[in-house]
């Protein structure tokens, strides 16, 4: 189980970063989402893995999954949702204004007098 | 008084459904739950009533129940048939077909129920409505005789629906 989770984190990180290194905003944003999944799972895994023991208190349960990382991941999901919305909007605004959705904003060097 | 009633209960059936949903959600059939469910069943439709302006004037619950049972039975039967087709029939021997069903129903709600029924019954999918809403386009997975399918649907479902949505 641990191997699966760890490798899933690794693969999502890899693919996410690969997309982040693309040249257009849309794949970059998707990459960011993928990376967010990866880090959420990582954060979740910091409470270790527990199968079949949700942290809902019951009388007969003997053990629970660590609730704290779950709460943290929840917060992280919400925050990254807000961030995604924002970056999508800004990227869209930039695209609408310039007709260019390159994430690189290469500065055109204008040669002026040096002295 | 009637207007107040109408205002409070824009969709009495919906109120009932919501109460049932509430009870099943809570999985607790107590008096308190039922009351609470009914209260919600009044409030929520009131809030969403603006988005359902022309509700059907009458709706036969009893006949609808019988209709649902019929459809469920049809679904099970047809499922087995379709499963058989999926597992055994090669692509080349499939006889898919488009079928046009002229509609006698004119309420959107009724047409929707018909279309839904058609879709849920394996082997057919409601795909489109004509621009006046007088024809329904369905697709059949394997229909050697499209007209038979059309007639079957009209008499088995549409006629019943005409009685439910008067």
């Amino acid at each position: 189980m641990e191997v699966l989770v760890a490798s899933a984190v690794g693969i999502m990180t890899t693919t996410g970063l690969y997309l982040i290194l693309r040249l257009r905003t849309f794949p970059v944003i998707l990459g960011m989402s993928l990376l967010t999944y990866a880090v959420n799972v990582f954060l979740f895994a910091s409470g270790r893995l527990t199968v079949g023991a949700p942290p809902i208190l019951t009388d007969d349960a003997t053990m629970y999954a660590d609730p704290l990382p779950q709460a943290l991941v929840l917060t992280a999901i919400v925050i990254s949702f807000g961030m995604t919305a924002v970056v999508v909007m800004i990227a869209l605004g930039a695209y609408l204004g310039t007709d260019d959705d390159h994430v690189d904003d290469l500065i055109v060097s204008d040669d002026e007098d040096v002295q | 008084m009637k207007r107040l009633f109408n205002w409070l209960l824009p969709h009495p059936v919906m109120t009932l459904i919501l109460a049932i949903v509430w009870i099943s959600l809570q999985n607790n059939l107590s008096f308190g739950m039922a009351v609470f469910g009914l209260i919600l069943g009044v409030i929520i439709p009131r809030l969403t009533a603006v988005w359902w302006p022309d509700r059907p004037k009458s709706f036969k619950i009893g006949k609808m129940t019988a209709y649902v049972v019929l459809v469920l039975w049809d679904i099970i039967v047809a499922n087995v048939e379709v499963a058989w087709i999926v597992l055994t029939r090669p692509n080349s021997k499939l006889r898919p077909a488009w079928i046009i069903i002229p509609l006698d129903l004119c309420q959107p709600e009724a047409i929707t129920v018909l279309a839904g029924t058609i879709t849920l019954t394996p082997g057919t999918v409601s795909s489109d409505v004509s621009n006046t809403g007088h024809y329904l386009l369905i697709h059949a997975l394997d229909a050697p005789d499209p007209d038979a399918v059309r007639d079957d649907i009209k008499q088995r479902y549409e006629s019943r629906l005409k009685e439910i949505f008067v």
Partner: protein
Amino acid sequence: MNWIEIGTYAVGVFLLIGAIFTLVGAIGLLRFNDAMTRLHAPTKVGTMGIGALLLASMTATFVFGEGSFHELLIMAFLFVTAPISANFISKVNIHHKTCMAPPDPPEGERWSTSLKEENDQVTTDM
């Protein structure tokens, strides 16, 4: 053989039915060669499969626990929403012409999917 045992068998049987129909749906999805044909398999057979699984679950709650009708709610949602999904996917097929074109309706009517707005043209300068 007591009720619990019967219930257990019932759960198992429902599970097997569900398993078969779910699988059949996926097989159909994979193997049919026409887009509209493919639509039939999962949207219905699958629904039946999940329906059986839900029934299994509901039975299980009655056999092993206090019992609940939650699963009926899920089933209701699935059955209510499945036609819309299918409807939209058909429309996409018709719109993209990825299936055999449907015959026109009589009396000069059009299918709603193929209505066109006058101003909507494909432009290349976007």
